């Protein structure tokens, strides 16, 4: 690993000043992704500014919402009584991600900033537009079983690896950031990007901005929410497809619905087309199939990942059926 300087920030101002005066510096959260990428030579910062001791609170809002500090560990979010009660989809998503050890280390801010697990991104002998703009993409014509079926471009077919962010997408979370030029709020759905012709840019966060917190607005039907992850082994693997959903059924009709997909795109994929089909329709399996069909209509498979399209459809239907009170556990 290339050597670097290290400083642990004890204030937000100190962290922003340190990142501002050190070219090539990066913020460090738990390090579970960044340290790995540095060891592989994919990330080569000249300096790390450790911000894991900042913003470590979860604040319960009077309106039923929640503000989760960027430095809170993933384990603490998943185990928080209010998260479990009002936003179980978020607890489940985190608990289905990584391992117990990694969840103890990883922070909320770091989870948002995770980079793709595309094999070609990790292999510096391969061509990758995300690593080196204009180099080309070896995944498009390579082994692309884990790659994107929605929103991809000819330049990049990588997927976003986070489970937590898929739940946050369904929950309409907002990311609070602070920079030298002030604070701003970025809707989670605008935080991550589609690749287009600039796949080297993962997020809309500026290099000198620090993530402060994630805010969850109140969601009265949030208790009826869940996360389902389909993967190659029963535990400790990235998603092939995942579904985060929340559903409110009144008089047999869908009164409210939230749906997001993971493992299928360069960003957590909010299924707005499916939600439009669901809203006001009879809460039946047939409706859920129509909704899934509407969302996946624009999906395109590569040589090895077309199975994800049908898998996503079926997983959507299974999760919605369960939230509507039908179907087995998990």
């Amino acid at each position, binding site marked *: 690993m290339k050597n670097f300087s*290290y400083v642990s920030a004890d204030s937000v101002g100190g962290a922003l000043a340190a990142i501002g005066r050190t070219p090539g510096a990066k913020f460090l959260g*738990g*390090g579970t992704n960044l*340290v790995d990428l540095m060891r592989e030579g994919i990330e080569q910062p000249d300096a790390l500014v450790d911000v894991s001791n900042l913003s470590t609170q979860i604040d319960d809002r009077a309106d039923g919402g929640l503000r989760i500090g960027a430095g809170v560990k993933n384990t603490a979010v998943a*185990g928080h009584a209010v998260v479990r009660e009002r936003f179980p989809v978020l607890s489940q998503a985190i608990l289905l991600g*990584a391992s*117990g*050890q990694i969840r103890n*280390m990883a922070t909320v801010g770091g989870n948002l900033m995770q980079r793709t697990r595309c094999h070609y991104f990790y292999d510096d002998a391969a061509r990758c537009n995300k690593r080196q703009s204009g180099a080309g993409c070896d995944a498009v014509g390579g082994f692309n079983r884990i790659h994107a079926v929605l929103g991809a471009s000819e330049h990049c077919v990588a997927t976003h690896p986070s489970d937590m962010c898929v739940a946050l997408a369904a929950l309409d979370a907002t990311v609070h950031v602070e920079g030298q030029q002030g604070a701003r709020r970025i809707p989670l759905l605008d935080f991550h990007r589609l690749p287009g012709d600039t796949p080297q840019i993962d997020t809309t966060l500026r290099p000198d901005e620090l993530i402060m917190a994630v805010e969850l607005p109140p969601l009265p039907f949030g208790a009826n929410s869940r996360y389902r992850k389909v993967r190659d082994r029963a*535990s400790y693997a990235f998603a092939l497809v995942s579904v985060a959903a929340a559903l409110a059924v009144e008089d047999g009709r869908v009164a409210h619905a939230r749906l997001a997909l993971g493992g299928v795109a360069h960003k957590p994929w909010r299924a707005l087309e499916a939600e439009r089909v669901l809203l006001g329709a009879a809460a039946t399996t047939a409706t859920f199939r129509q909704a899934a069909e509407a969302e996946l209509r624009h999906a395109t498979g590569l040589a090895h990942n077309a199975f994800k399209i049908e898998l996503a459809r079926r997983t959507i239907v299974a999760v919605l059926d369960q939230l509507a009170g039908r179907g087995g556990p998990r």
Partner: protein
Amino acid sequence: MDGDETHMSIRLRVNGEWRELRAEPRVSLLDALRERLGLTGTKKGCNQGACGACTVLLDGERVNACLTLAVQAQGREVTTIEGLATGDALHPLQAAFVACDGLQCGYCTPGQLCSALGMVREFQRGLPSAVTAEVQSGRPAWSTEEIRERLSGNLCRCGAYNGIVEAVHQTFQAEVAR
């Protein structure tokens, strides 16, 4: 960058004893323990957070020492496999691993033990897992299914999983039921 000015003084409380070392920020906690402090019980498997062989307890919480920079552990309490026994008396979980055939080659064992100890603490404070039936309320129920899920971050290439799960189950069943 080279020279001593890139080194940092790092103070860790390892198995109850304060230790100091000078190391570059890029030195992992795993390498600091093994190469600088002579504690080779903690093992390097994949060195990328995938196998769990390097698991230690940091302020009582299980972490992958390979993904932790030694400087991140500054001033904190580290417990390694060397800190579990009392003299020649094995920790009850160590004794159970022997009794239940919870190991073959032994390479993953230090990580399995530290991971299990951290996991039991998590369980005791009511943290749910991905297989907990009701995430919304209540405490998870102690079961082999819960143990298997919670220890999935520790791989064993000899396949001693049944013995490992049995050892953990037997050792803590009475304690967590309280």
